[in-house]
């Protein structure tokens, strides 16, 4: 994902977050999104990241960050400690057990925001179908041998998953090569962001 793309996507995420809320970002990288949330939404921010350099950068930004493994990070938090848990590309890249971690995220937080690369973009489909190659796209720009991605999923996959686990999708936004895309996102979107909550809570 280019940095422009990142900024636009972050704008959407920031728009979903209520001012003054508490946010935990898993796999927060150098803390760019968290720093913006602190500045623009006055959130109480906590990051979790395993990469030395990225953690260091977060601390330089004055962010609360923990240098630890994302998979192990949630079980010490009490129920509903946060208003939002955010995964920006990290669910597919650093979480080894996404199902477990997502369910934990919805225990420690009221809502969860998940951003990921869509494996079913038409270019990806074309590369598999016509060229017989593992897809390399703008949002999945890696060859099989150097990809940081552990899991590949599509927008439909994620929707199915939410259905199967009783998770309600409250908001979603999709980005194609020219910005936000609304038509047939599973075909046209390179990246997707979802705001989810536990189903019974969404229904009040």
């Amino acid at each position, binding site marked *: 994902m280019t940095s422009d793309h990142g900024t636009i996507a972050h704008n959407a995420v920031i728009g979903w977050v209520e001012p003054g809320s508490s946010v935990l970002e898993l796999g927060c990288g150098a803390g760019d999104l968290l720093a913006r949330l602190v500045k623009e939404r006055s959130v109480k921010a906590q990051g979790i990241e395993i990469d*030395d350099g990225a953690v*260091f950068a977060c*601390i330089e930004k*004055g962010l*609360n*960050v*923990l240098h*630890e493994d994302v998979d192990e990070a949630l079980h010490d*938090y009490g129920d509903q400690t946060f208003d939002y848990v955010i995964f920006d590309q990290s669910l597919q890249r650093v979480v080894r057990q996404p199902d477990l971690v997502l369910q934990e995220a919805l225990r420690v937080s009221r809502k969860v925001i998940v951003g990921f690369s869509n494996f079913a973009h038409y270019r990806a489909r074309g590369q598999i179908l016509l060229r017989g190659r593992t897809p390399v796209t703008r949002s999945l720009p890696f060859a099989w041998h150097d990809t940081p991605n552990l899991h590949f999923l599509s927008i439909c996959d994620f929707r199915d998953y939410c259905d199967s686990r009783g998770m309600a999708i409250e908001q979603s936004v999709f980005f194609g090569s020219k910005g936000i895309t609304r038509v047939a996102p599973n075909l046209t979107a390179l990246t997707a962001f979802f705001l989810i909550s536990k189903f019974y809570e969404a229904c009040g």
Partner: protein
Amino acid sequence: MLQEANAVTKDGLGLVVTKEFKFAEPPGELPLDCGEKLGPITVAYETYGELNREKSNAILVLHAFSGDAHAAGWHEGDSKPGWWDEMIGPGKAFDTDRYFVICSNVLGGCKGTTGPSSVDRATGKPYGIDFPLVTIPDMVQVQARLVDHLGIGRLLSVAGGSMGGQQVLEWLVSFPERVQSALVIATAAKHSPQQIAFNEVGREAIMSDPNWNNGQYYDGEQPVRGLSIARMVGHITYMSDASMAEKFGRRTGGNGHARPFGRGFEVEDYLHHKGLTFVDRFDANSYLYITRAIDDYDAGKGGTLAAAFKGLEARVFVISFKSDWLYPSYQSADIVRACKKAGVDVSYYDVSSTYGHDAFLLEVEEQSVLITSFLRKVTEEGEGI
């Protein structure tokens, strides 16, 4: 000679002096954890920088096992500056242009604060092992009295590594309302059996030296052999396999003790040197008392640390070092876990270093950036309130 001295002192704090604070004059002795009372008590301390008008810029720095009040700057005629001089001074991590930094020698120590080598007023002789058992919480009580004496209510930060880190934890537990932030470095909420085991070897080395004489050696020969062996063990635990390999390799040394086994190795010379020089600056009874205090310490007081941290408002920063096997990173991660459970604002960084436990004194560059950023944030928040 004078010019040389000026040259070395130019870019730091320059010359500093150790001051004394006396309190607990009978009948107002300090009640200790063990049930006994102690007084009068002298506290050796140093301060650097200026306390601001609001008294909101004070940072208490807590020394490790063999440290002292002389954390930074130079003493007249010394060849080395204070033990954390690279971190404390104008423009450094603990920036004395912004902060008022305090460091004192611990209770039970031998560097100016009352300890077993101090003269017991009742007998006119050094206490020796008649000195009451002191604990980490006792040490912190004494520091709190010093902070009172300096007219400071709330500390901007308390910071320390190793045994100093245990005291930071104790500040958080004993005086949560007096601490705005805490830097907890290379430490443990309680010692593991392995840590206690190494300390016991040190204590046993001292007490089995005939010169130790049940702690009454101040008139005669010091238990040099015992104390230096204790220190040798200590130094092994402060380094890592990698840092020893890097520093000494298998180079042979001039170790005379090795006869008839040849010349011995450079690492042996190093340990002997460290052991023998330690004897000149440390008291064997203080070694016994302080190691006992750090072994006995449990920040959770028998319960969980998370329960002890409940309601804590201080912002906490925990730092550990990947090659530290004396205070392994998992012990720092345990402290972090307690903060998470208790809802305490916490950051954690596990520094890549090959220096072992010594890293907390040697990894200056990375720690400087981390601590500078953390203190800046804490100061901003304090001003925002």
